[in-house]
């Protein structure tokens, strides 16, 4: 019998899903407003004068949730779900439902004084949310905005891939350009090209409307010309590179990185340099932790302890105000004294890695995590304690850490450029160490250890020794971070070494991609560069008080949607594309070998 495929009508939707996501959208918007995010972020303009970061924090919600509400998974072996007006209607409905909830929230907040419970919900917020036009008009506007944006979210499913990519790229580009405003203005100023930056960026901050249109159009155009997602294509290609090709690529990437690292600080202003120095500092630690967690699979939650050890060792060796020992060495990289400092820092870090590592190394998984977490806190509390105050200064810490010296140059926090250069050198060392070790007998032993400890042991890998080695190498890299930190800040206090530092470094590794060096670099740039570290501001300095919220949300999102990280390690990447890529690569190699043989 010949059956006509039944066409689905425009309203044949998973209404449950639409309703659910609509409600989520409304609640999310209400939540974001009630914690004061809209109000605080309103000061930062994205597109002057029409869009602030605060409103952006609300407006993405109906789009994303409208998209989610109409998302249909393509099931294996079934025809791809057909797209059409249905998606628009679903998105619109989800947006309207979300809008309705949000308007209800505004109305309630207007009618009842909630400041006792939510100190951030006050007349100022209401005024802002209703565009200063009263609840009725404001509410109606929100209903409209939310509905339309929800529909736009649904529309994303319907648009042909190319168009969709153009649209999303244009929007992302405008946002990114607004994001890096400080850095770009900085560069253009020192290049004396303020004409351009003045035209792109408005006086009050944010991109001008004309600038936004041009940037968006350029981004859209470039995406239309290119095939597929450039980043994904590049990563896939990188993953399939073999031997020499990969070596060459790494060399070129390294050279470009080096040139950038040398030139950038010169053209950047203090603020941006400071930012990059922070990124580098966290990158240094993340590279070390990546070795422990990503390579050897040891979940260390007390990693900050080694950072602290490095910082305190440097402080004691160099500061004249160190309470007990005052060798007052100068951290001069061109003299023997500086090398003595570094050797001592490395030795103390290695020793503390050994001391912390030996008792915990036999523990596994969760137990290891909990015990290291405890050790991290113990180290901080020891530095803080009255008992050891005669040596470490207790809560006062150690001040007056002198600048480091490299030939004629003084390196300290007041000249962020110099710190940046220092960080770059040590990051280079860390990358090199991680990369060499990974591609050696030791790296393979770590990988085996991570996959199955018992079997690794049974196959002749001395697991205890290899774990300790990972621990100690990680500790040394962190201690370098601590050393630079001490020089940069000029003083060390126990309060700089809280648990949150360990956690943020771990989040960098997870979000970037465990076991992946480029992943860790991307992770530090995105997290520390944009959001900022525990106490250091990022490009979105306005996020300050919401930083941890965003870190948390990001972590949850990544774990659910992209557990392999932003830039997965080659191993993880292989996992995703396995057969085809490898078989292709092999066939290509065979063909090449054949043609070489014929000649």
């Amino acid at each position, binding site marked *: 019998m010949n059956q006509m495929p039944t066409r689905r009508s425009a309203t044949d939707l998973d209404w449950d899903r639409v309703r659910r996501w609509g409600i989520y959208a409304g609640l999310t918007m209400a939540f974001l407003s009630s914690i004061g995010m809209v109000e605080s972020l309103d000061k930062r303009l994205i597109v002057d004068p029409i869009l602030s970061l605060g409103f952006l924090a609300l407006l993405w919600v109906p789009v994303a949730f409208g998209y989610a509400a109409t998302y249909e998974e393509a099931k294996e072996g079934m025809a791809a779900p057909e797209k059409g007006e249905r998606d628009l209607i679903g998105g619109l409905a989800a947006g309207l439902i979300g809008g309705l909830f949000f308007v209800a929230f505004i109305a309630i907040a207007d009618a009842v004084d909630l400041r006792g419970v939510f100190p951030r919900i006050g007349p100022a917020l209401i005024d802002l949310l209703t565009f200063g036009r009263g609840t009725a008009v404001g509410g109606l506007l929100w209903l409209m905005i939310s509905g339309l944006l929800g529909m736009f979210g649904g529309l994303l499913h319907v648009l042909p891939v190319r168009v969709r990519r153009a649209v999303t790229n244009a929007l992302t580009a405008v946002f990114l350009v607004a994001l890096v405003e400080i850095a770009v203005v900085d560069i253009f100023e020192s290049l004396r090209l303020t004409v351009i930056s003045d035209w792109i960026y408005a006086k009050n901050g944010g991109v001008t409307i004309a600038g936004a249109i041009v940037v968006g159009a350029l981004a859209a155009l470039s995406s239309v010309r290119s095939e597929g997602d450039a980043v994904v294509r590049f990563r896939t290609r990188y993953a399939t590179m073999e031997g020499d090709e990969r070596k060459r690529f790494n060399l070129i990437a390294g050279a470009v990185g080096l040139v950038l690292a040398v030139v950038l600080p010169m053209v950047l202003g203090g603020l941006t340099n400071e930012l990059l120095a922070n990124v580098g500092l966290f990158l240094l630690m993340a590279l070390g932790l990546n070795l422990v967690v990503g390579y050897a699979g040891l979940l260390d939650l007390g990693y900050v302890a080694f950072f602290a050890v490095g910082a305190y060792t440097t402080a004691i060796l160099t500061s004249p105000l160190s309470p007990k020992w005052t060798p007052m060495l100068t951290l001069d990289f061109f003299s023997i004294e500086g090398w003595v400092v570094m050797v001592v820092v490395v030795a103390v870090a290695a020793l503390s890695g050994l001391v912390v590592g030996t008792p915990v190394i036999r523990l596994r998984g969760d137990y290891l995590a909990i015990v290291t977490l405890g050790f991290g806190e113990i180290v901080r509390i020891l530095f803080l304690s009255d008992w050891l105050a005669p040596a470490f200064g207790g809560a006062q810490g150690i001040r007056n850490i002198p600048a480091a010296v490299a030939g004629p140059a003084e390196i300290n926090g007041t000249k962020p450029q110099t710190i940046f250069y220092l960080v770059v050198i040590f990051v280079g060392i860390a990358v*090199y*160490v991680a990369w*060499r*070790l990974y*591609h*050696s*007998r*030791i*790296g*393979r*032993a770590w*990988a*085996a250890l991570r*996959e*199955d400890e*018992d*079997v*690794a*042991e*049974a*196959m*002749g*890998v*001395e*697991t205890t020794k290899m774990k300790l*080695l990972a621990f100690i*190498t990680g500790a040394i890299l962190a201690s370098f971070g601590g050393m630079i930190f001490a020089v940069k800040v000029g003083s060390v206090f126990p309060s700089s070494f809280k648990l949150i530092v360990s956690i943020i470094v771990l989040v960098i590794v997870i979000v970037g991609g465990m076991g992946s060096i480029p992943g860790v670099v991307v992770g530090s740039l995105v997290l520390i560069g944009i959001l900022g570290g525990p106490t250091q501001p990022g490009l979105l300095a306005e996020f300050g008080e919401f930083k941890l919220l965003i870190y948390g949300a990001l972590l949850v999102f990544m774990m659910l949607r992209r557990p392999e990280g932003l830039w997965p390690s080659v*191993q*993880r990447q*292989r*996992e995703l594309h*396995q*057969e085809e890529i*490898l*078989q292709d*690569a*092999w*066939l290509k190699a065979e063909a090449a070998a054949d043609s070489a043989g014929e000649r």
Partner: protein
Amino acid sequence: MHLLEITGLTKSFGGLQALGGVDFHIDELEIVSVIGPNGAGKTTFFNTISGLVVPDEGRIVFEDEDIAGLEPSEITKRGIARTFQNVRLFPDMTILENVMVAQHCRTETGVWGALFNTPTFRNEERAIEERAKDILGFFGTRLTGYRFRQPAYVLSYANRRRLEIARAMGTMPRLLLLDEPTAGMNPKETAELTGLIRKLRDEKGFTIVVIEHEMRVVRDVSDRVVVLDHGVKIAEGSYDEVSSNPDVIEAYLGRPAEEGA
């Protein structure tokens, strides 16, 4: 002088006696099968030899040294390697890496060599890779070519078993312990592996202890058969002697039917 000589090997888990004083020996270039019904203690026997389980009592003398209670990696270093009944590869490492990492205890360059890419390090790396490829070549073409760089988890079940043997060979042992190497294989693959086990001895010079349920394999490969039941050795001898031994028949028939028994 036996290559491996075990006396009075005992191991209990709580109240359950998995091994109750087992005596065992194997000579250089011998193939000995260990058989017995489910739960007889065969895997525990291997676990104690390879050090994953520490025996309560008994001596395990390998090349004149008592190795009972040593770390598993130490035992592997002394020349005993094993496979696992429930295939335990390093799934996300490549096939080549699985065999390369097994050579850990036969190589020594450390942090220094790796960091400075010393000639010793490079030569050793090259040798490790060559040897791994050579070992994988022993199994025909199914683990070679483009397979080298594939993660181990893409392999079929039979190939995983083969890779496990290859990995054990990577540790360059004198004594190989194979725990049910043909489990889950079809008759053709089983027959092929039977031949391969003999080749491992004849061409590669390994001494082999194999745990097997498949009686045809036991008949074809063993010089000697040892039967365990309830942690006790109930019979020992050639395949023909053992298969007609009334105790053995009772041990098997007294339980849910075993295939091939």
